[in-house]
């Protein structure tokens, strides 16, 4: 058991508390710790940009340990994008370093008087001036801070978008890994927190070190002999571009279409053949999906990690860029500015569609906008990150922007709960649709990537979809709680039981996989409750997809003619709530909360006026 490091930026002080075994048993670590600590530490009704909001940084109990994919860290805060629960995770080498410094989690509250880098060198925490990097790009800042503090510090930083409180600003690390979603980077910016640099020289305490090391070796060797081991890495996540087009789910022109004619110009093969410099792995990864690329375009040459699938979908198909070099260029611009490429791609596409429909004028925007035009994309990203001109409105995200612009634009503001939609269009994929609708942070795919289930079980049927989504919403976030990457399981078929048998060897807690899933369900109910506590009138209304998906038929491609009318959406929600034993309004019921040991949460929700 380690410690939790608590930092107060206002007081420039830091202290530690021991991590209780009860906290690990109930919430495991990582995302589970983020959920519990935010529930406990963020006062109800806190403005996400106020000093009272709390940043939680949590590796998991298996982070930094010798097993595949042990390099993930969770970054949480009350989300400025949604006003509810927010977290985002990233790979790289930050997570293990936090563990080597001796911490199971870090919390940061308050606001620094001036731009600050928090330097964590084992037990020593200091507050360093960030004046020289404030205003600089995220990648440039990391390079400068490495030079200043030393190569063996792991650094997480924000870019200008975070400093300027753009609601989809990300946290960047390892020259291209990002905690991109829910605007966590803007919360750092609101605290004048430019970066955290950490160095740890300790060993992780392990309950049964010999057995754990042997198990780790067995797991690696197991991965080496999986069928997908050799085929996955050369292309990484970009491999999936062709498949998503084939099944008619590829975001194209602001999700108005679901098949991108130019997809061969931006797929895994194009990436590998035309721009890849090297594979770039996160800590402990046997199958690195990271690709480092060099791309030349008419606007110039960039070096960038990526583009990953999500960036290709949202900054490729969704804005109709058909050349992998141009997608890489847009990716590099977004990374340096510190913008999430998923939300960024959505916002840019939304603006282009508004321009096409005459809802935004050349005068308002400052130039013409067009599909497939890299100049339009880069122009908007820069305006957004600096909140200049049209960027001021767009930096709020598509939900807020559409409310201001009006003219029916709400229907093609592609978001749920205020978070823009990631890379799978779902009009003909009910399980994927309900995944996006009910994801606790908004329209994100990582909690339940159920589109393969739709393809396998029938894409028109609703039956069994909600229950598969619930199952996935417990399995996948378990990796997030353990501090692990799930891609060895998802992509090369490495068995889940391996992770379960490692957990007791490391922690000394004799949990089974079922126990871990139970903790995951507890976390899921708590994050839902957090959003209900923080967002007035929260419930079913916050789970609906945008009007486009319920009213407009897919115009072309493999999913031509498909739409998912509101009655089907309601049927999916009814199934989902009932299986979760939530109320018809989508709130965790008292009996479910009590069964999970969360009676105190039910009390809070009732106090807030909800009937549970």
């Amino acid at each position, binding site marked *: 058991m380690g410690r939790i490091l608590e930092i107060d930026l206002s007081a420039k002080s830091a202290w530690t508390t021991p991590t209780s075994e009860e906290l690990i048993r109930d919430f495991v670590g990582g995302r589970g710790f983020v959920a519990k600590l935010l529930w406990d530490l963020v006062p109800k009704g806190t403005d996400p940009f106020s000093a009272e909001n709390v940043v939680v940084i949590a590796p998991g109990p298996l982070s930094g340990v010798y097993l595949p994919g042990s390099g993930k860290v969770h970054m949480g805060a009350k989300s400025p994008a949604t006003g509810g629960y927010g977290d985002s995770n990233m790979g790289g080498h930050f997570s293990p370093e936090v563990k080597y410094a001796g911490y199971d989690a870090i919390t940061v509250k308050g606001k620094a008087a001036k731009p600050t880098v928090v330097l964590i060198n084992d037990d020593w925490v200091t507050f360093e001036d960030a004046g020289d990097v404030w205003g600089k790009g995220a990648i440039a800042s990391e390079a400068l801070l490495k030079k200043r503090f030393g190569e063996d510090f792991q650094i997480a930083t924000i870019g200008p978008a975070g400093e300027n409180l753009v609601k989809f600003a990300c946290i960047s690390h390892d020259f291209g890994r990002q905690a991109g979603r829910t605007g966590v980077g803007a919360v750092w910016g609101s605290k004048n927190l430019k970066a955290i640099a950490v160095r740890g020289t300790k060993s992780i305490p392990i309950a049964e070190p010999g057995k754990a090391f042997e198990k780790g070796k067995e797991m690696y060797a197991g991965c080496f002999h999986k069928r997908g081991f050799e085929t996955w890495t050369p292309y990484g996540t970009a491999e999936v571009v062709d498949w998503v087009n084939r099944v008619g789910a590829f975001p194209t022109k602001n999700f108005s279409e679901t098949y991108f004619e130019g997809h061969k110009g931006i797929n895994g093969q194009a990436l590998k053949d035309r721009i890849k410099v090297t594979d770039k792995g996160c800590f402990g990864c046997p199958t*690195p999906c990271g690709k480092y690329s060099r791309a030349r375009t008419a606007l110039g040459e960039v070096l960038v990690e990526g583009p990953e699938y999500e960036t290709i979908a949202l900054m490729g198909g969704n804005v109709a860029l058909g050349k992998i070099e141009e997608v890489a260029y847009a990716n590099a611009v977004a990374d340096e500015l510190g913008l999430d490429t998923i939300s960024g791609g959505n916002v840019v596409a939304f603006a282009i569609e508004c321009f096409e429909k005459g809802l935004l004028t050349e005068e308002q925007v400052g130039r013409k906008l067009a599909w497939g035009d890299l100049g339009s994309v880069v122009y908007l990203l820069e305006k957004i990150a600096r909140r200049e001109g049209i960027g001021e409105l767009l930096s709020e995200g598509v939900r807020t922007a559409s409310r201001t612009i009006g003219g029916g634009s709400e229907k093609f503001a592609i978001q749920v709960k205020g978070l823009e939609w990631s890379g799978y269009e779902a009009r003909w994929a009910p399980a994927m649709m309900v995944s996006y609708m009910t994801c606790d942070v908004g329209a994100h795919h990582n909690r339940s990537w159920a589109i393969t289930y739709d393809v396998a079980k029938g894409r028109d049927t609703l039956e069994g979809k909600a229950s598969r989504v619930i199952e996935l919403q417990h399995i996948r976030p378990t990796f997030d709680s353990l501090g692990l990457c799930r891609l060895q399981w998802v992509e090369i078929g490495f068995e889940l039981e391996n992770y379960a048998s490692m957990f007791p060897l490391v922690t000394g807690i004799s949990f089974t996989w079922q126990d871990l899933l139970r903790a995951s369900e507890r976390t899921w109910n708590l994050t839902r409750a957090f959003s209900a506590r923080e967002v007035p009138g929260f419930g079913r209304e916050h789970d609906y997809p945008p009007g486009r998906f319920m009213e407009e038929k897919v115009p072309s491609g493999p999913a031509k003619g498909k739409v998912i009318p509101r009655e089907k959406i309601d049927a999916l929600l009814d199934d989902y709530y009932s299986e979760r034993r939530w109320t018809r309004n989508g709130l965790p019921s008292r009996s479910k909360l009590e069964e999970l040991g969360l009676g105190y949460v039910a009390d809070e929700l009732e106090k807030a006026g909800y009937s549970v």
Partner: protein
Amino acid sequence: MCLLTCALTNFGLNNPRYGGLEIVPHFPSPGTYEVKVCQRCGACKDACPTGAIKEQPDGSYRVEVDECLGCDSCVDACPEKVLRLIPGKNVAFICVSCGECVKYCPREALVDGDGEVKRA
């Protein structure tokens, strides 16, 4: 992975910075990695003030633990920067060619003394 494999195999320490090899990343530009391993150049032996570092018949070098002062001279002299002081013991550690890093390199970037890849 190679670093952590080494640190765990040789010291039982779960922290890659104690591995007896080094990965030097060059990012953001040009975007490459350098992997450094002991080249058996003997610079450590030459720098050792007590003669504690001995050349072995196979061309590798070993530290006589009783003769090592933990003075860091060899660590500074190593051109590859892959020598370490064993944490808590204050004696030098030089790669013992156990081959574990080779076995667990998933990308087959490391080879053994015969130039062969032997992945687990």
